[in-house]
């Protein structure tokens, strides 16, 4: 129960940022897991689906909290209910709407998927299916190749989930340094992903042009 203390609920409804932030921190991983599960259900298990989830996940989670923290939604929330399932319901709706906008269709059995999810209070835990095996291997190789400082920054930002400011404080670095390193981490991985894709597609293209030429 997020709102065990009546004062917390009161402060949340009043829109006190500290209370909102506490609720956010307590629930963001749950929302992310529900969003991930719904998007996976919509996408299937293909490589393209994994890419689409990667592109959509943060947008969906953001939309959920924008809706849930809006003044009218805070007041409307029935405090006799638990907050996480309430957020889970918003997440399911937002994720499905998002998918419809992206792809204009949803799987036929989606209602059954949603019904099944409604029965599971806790969505699936994180596993190693966050991307296809080839992509995971590229990411892991890239992370293993990082120097010590980059690795510490990666750990702070992407494993512990700290903000740039928090990471800078913890690591005793300037925020600008963390920001620059973060951009470099993205750039480096992007380069590896693109290189991997070219390595796969170029021989295929050559083969196709040889056969058709």
């Amino acid at each position, binding site marked *: 129960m997020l709102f065990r203390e009546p004062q917390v609920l009161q402060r949340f409804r009043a*829109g006190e*940022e500290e209370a*909102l*932030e506490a609720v*956010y921190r307590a629930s*963001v*991983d749950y929302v*992310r897991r529900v969003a*991930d599960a719904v998007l996976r259900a919509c996408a299937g298990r293909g490589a393209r689906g994994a*890419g689409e*989830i*990667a*592109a959509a*996940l*943060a*947008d969906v*989670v*953001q*939309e959920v*909290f*924008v809706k*849930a*923290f*809006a*003044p*009218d939604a*805070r007041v409307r929330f029935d405090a006799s209910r638990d907050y996480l399932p309430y957020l889970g319901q918003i997440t399911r709706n937002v994720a499905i*709407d*998002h998918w419809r*906008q992206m792809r204009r269709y949803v799987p036929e059995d989606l209602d059954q998927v949603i019904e099944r999810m409604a029965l599971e209070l806790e969505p699936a835990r*994180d596993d190693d*299916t*966050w*991307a296809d095996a080839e*992509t995971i291997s590229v*990411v892991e190789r890239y*992370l293993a190749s990082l120097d010590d400082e980059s690795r510490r920054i*990666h750990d*702070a*930002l*992407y*494993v*512990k*989930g*700290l*903000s*740039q*400011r*928090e*990471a800078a404080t913890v690591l005793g670095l300037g925020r600008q340094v963390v920001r620059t390193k*973060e951009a470099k*981490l*993205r750039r480096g*991985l*992007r380069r590896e*992903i*693109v290189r991997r*894709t070219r390595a796969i*597609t170029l021989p295929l293209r050559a083969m196709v042009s040889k056969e058709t030429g």
Partner: protein
Amino acid sequence: MSRPSDDEMDYLLSRGRLGGSQRRRILDTALAASRPRPWARWRALLAWGGGGVALAAGAAVLLLALRPKGDDGGGGFQVKGGNAPLITLTCLGATVAACPPGSKLAFSLEGGRDRGGFLSAYADPVESGQRVWYLHGESVGAANADFAPRVVPRWALVGPGQPVGRYRVHAVFSRRPVSREALGSLAPADVLARMDLDLVVSP
């Protein structure tokens, strides 16, 4: 292959979770959306012919250049007895005064008493260059009784190919869907709101 976005890279770097910067950005945006906004006051000011700049932490909203009716061949900014919604633009994760390529642009409508309509938006470079279309005929639902913001569900993207510089974003909220060509010559009765907003695409 299209260039993978920062969000996609963050997803991979965090092994399918959210990166710290994404978490912060989401929190900042949600906190900005949580604040009751004094739109009634803004609307009153605008109705009296004033203008203004509203800045919300983490999500800047810039309202600029209320142009007199008819100076662009269209309806100009429409204020019909305070019934017109305000069109706002947010550069997520940055500000409209410095919005780098790869950023998402969110449009929303504040207030209004309309029954919904269609939002189109495009950007013209202030200096020279090509027009960039962000939205065309995006359906937006009816105004809420409590004046809660109506966020347009579709994001626009500041593409990697969009040159750095100052842009004037023209947004038109119309009663019916219209072609791009017809936007500038819409009859005033078909325009629910029209707004010109400044956007700076930064390196």
